[in-house]
């Protein structure tokens, strides 16, 4: 045991002595969370909006005033015809254009029904989503007031949103589970595969194998520090997302940490597997980055919803471990569900971990012979 602890200590020394490793371990996660956080979900303030008022009556004027005075928007333009929409949006200062139909006020009062369009700049999907949601909320509010004032049956303004946007982006904080998923697999797999191949490359692995340390102790000793540091990472990310973005964990924190440990274990065993097939550190880095980063970003459901993919990609997604962890962590963090709802995904991760460990042990033995 003393042998083992000395070995683990040495592994920590490697980590703390290499600024690049330290940065990868702690800098990247913090930077990613903050970056994603502020880029993806920045509150709108003074977003430019323009109006195309085809009705020009008292009601439209009131609604326009209400939108402008909300504090979120600033009027950039007043359009005269539909033809100007494209031109105004292309200038880039205007995030959305609100179009009131002809006779908006009269329709609302007489027929109890009026329609307006919100045309948003879809090239910035996140801002567009936010802007339209805010305008809708203000309109609904306004609608309720009018309905309350008029004696008749409730008047209705039906805002129609014209924009392509990704429904998944509605939850502004969906990126936190995704970032945790990405960072854990990257750090664990990349770091372990690199740290083991480094020993091979420098010839120290041979010496370790000849020493009284058992191969299992060597592997455990090498991955143990990363297990501990990754767990700390998860906690740091959760705290960051809570205090900086006000996103608490809805479900059980204990369950979340337990599932994270399983996922870390899976990633570590994947890293060991990568190290058994790569001869040099470059090779290990290459396999980890190309083999893990892109699939995790593209196919795990982190950014692009799996449901919208063609069948071949959907099938590919099912063999990607992060896919399952993302489901688990989203369920626990955002929906607040318990283990009962994620046991299938958990089982898949357990099976994958066992497969990776089995393959690594087999490869390791072959190499020893």
């Amino acid at each position: 045991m003393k042998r083992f602890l000395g070995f683990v200590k040495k592994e920590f020394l490697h980590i703390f002595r290499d600024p690049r490793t330290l940065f990868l371990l702690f800098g990247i996660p913090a930077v990613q969370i903050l970056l994603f956080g502020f880029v993806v979900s920045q509150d709108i303030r003074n977003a430019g909006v323009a109006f195309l008022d085809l009705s020009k009556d008292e009601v439209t004027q009131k609604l326009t005033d209400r939108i402008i005075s909300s504090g979120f928007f600033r009027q950039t333009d007043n359009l005269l015809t539909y033809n100007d929409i494209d031109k105004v949006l292309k200038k880039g200062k205007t995030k959305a254009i609100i179009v009131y139909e002809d006779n908006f006020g009269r329709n609302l009062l007489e027929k109890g029904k009026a329609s307006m369009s919100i045309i948003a700049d879809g090239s910035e999907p996140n801002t567009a989503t936010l802007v339209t949601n805010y305008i809708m909320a203000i309109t609904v509010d306004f609608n309720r007031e009018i309905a309350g004032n008029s004696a008749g049956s409730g008047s209705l303004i039906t805002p129609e949103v014209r924009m392509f946007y990704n429904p998944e982006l509605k939850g502004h904080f969906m990126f936190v589970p995704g970032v945790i998923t990405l960072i854990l697999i990257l750090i664990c797999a990349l770091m372990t595969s690199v740290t083991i191949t480094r020993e091979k490359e420098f010839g120290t692995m041979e010496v370790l194998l000849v020493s009284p340390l058992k191969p299992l102790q060597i592997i455990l000793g090498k991955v143990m520090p990363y297990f501990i540091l990754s767990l700390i990472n998860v906690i740091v990310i959760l705290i960051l997302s809570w205090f900086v973005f006000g996103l608490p964990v809805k479900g059980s924190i204990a369950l979340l940490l337990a599932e994270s440990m399983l996922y870390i274990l899976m990633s570590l065993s994947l890293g060991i597997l990568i190290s058994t097939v790569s001869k040099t550190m470059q090779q290990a880095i290459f396999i980890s980055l190309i083999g893990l980063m892109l699939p995790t970003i593209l196919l795990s459901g982190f950014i692009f919803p799996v449901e919208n993919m063609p069948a071949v990609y959907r099938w590919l997604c099912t063999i990607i471990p992060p896919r399952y962890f993302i489901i688990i962590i989203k369920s626990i963090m955002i929906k607040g569900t318990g283990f009962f709802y994620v046991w299938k995904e958990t089982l898949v991760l357990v099976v994958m971990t066992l497969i990776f460990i089995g393959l690594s042990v087999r490869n390791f033995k072959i190499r020893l012979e």
Partner: protein
Amino acid sequence: MNDIVISVRNLVKKFGDFVANDNLSFEVYSGEIFGFLGANGAGKTTALRILSGLSSPTSGEVMVAGYDAKKEPEKIKKNIGYMCQKFSLYEDLTVKENTMLYGGIYGMSLPLIKKRTAELMEKLNFSDYENKLISDLPLGMKQKLAFSVAVLHEPKIVFLDEPTGGVDPVTRRQFWEMIYEAASRGITVFVTTHYMDEAEYCDRISIMSDGKIVALDTPANLKKQYNAETVEEVFIKIARPDSPPSPLKGG
């Protein structure tokens, strides 16, 4: 000199159909410097791995430091030291941290590690470098240190796998002085090398070719037997019996 520390009887190691070690038999005595020579691919590394408990023989009897390599490789590992061509020290750790690590791995107590390290530093005149990173040391220093670390736990046998690759002649000379010193303390030194002049320093040498040991004796006897001036000549005569002796440099 008569205690046998390594005893190999009819060792065979096969990889599929390929016979890497073909019926090896030899003995190494306590305190001896035993040179293990052979061209690349002759089977040196395979034999070295079996002797150090890393891999298991297909058949034959291998006893190292009193333990059976087939049944008790773990016990062998505790009684040997090992140094490979790549020096095997951690570049990003200090001299002291390296000795602490290896001492710890071999189960030495903390006071003992500290005592031995202090002695070592004094002997090598390294005291100023104790807290320097290995990466800041010159190559020759690293190499001496790697050897000292390999024998820090006073093993019965130390295996050196081409330990002097890429080192200047002066440092090699100093390195061999360290080997002699260790042997005089009773540590058996089992060394593989490409440098034929180094083979002259060994008490006995064995030469392998195609998985077999084709010669085993003291350098002097071998030279007499093959009517050669140097071990290098002996080696060339054995490795390429048809070609006339040539002044090729070893290594």
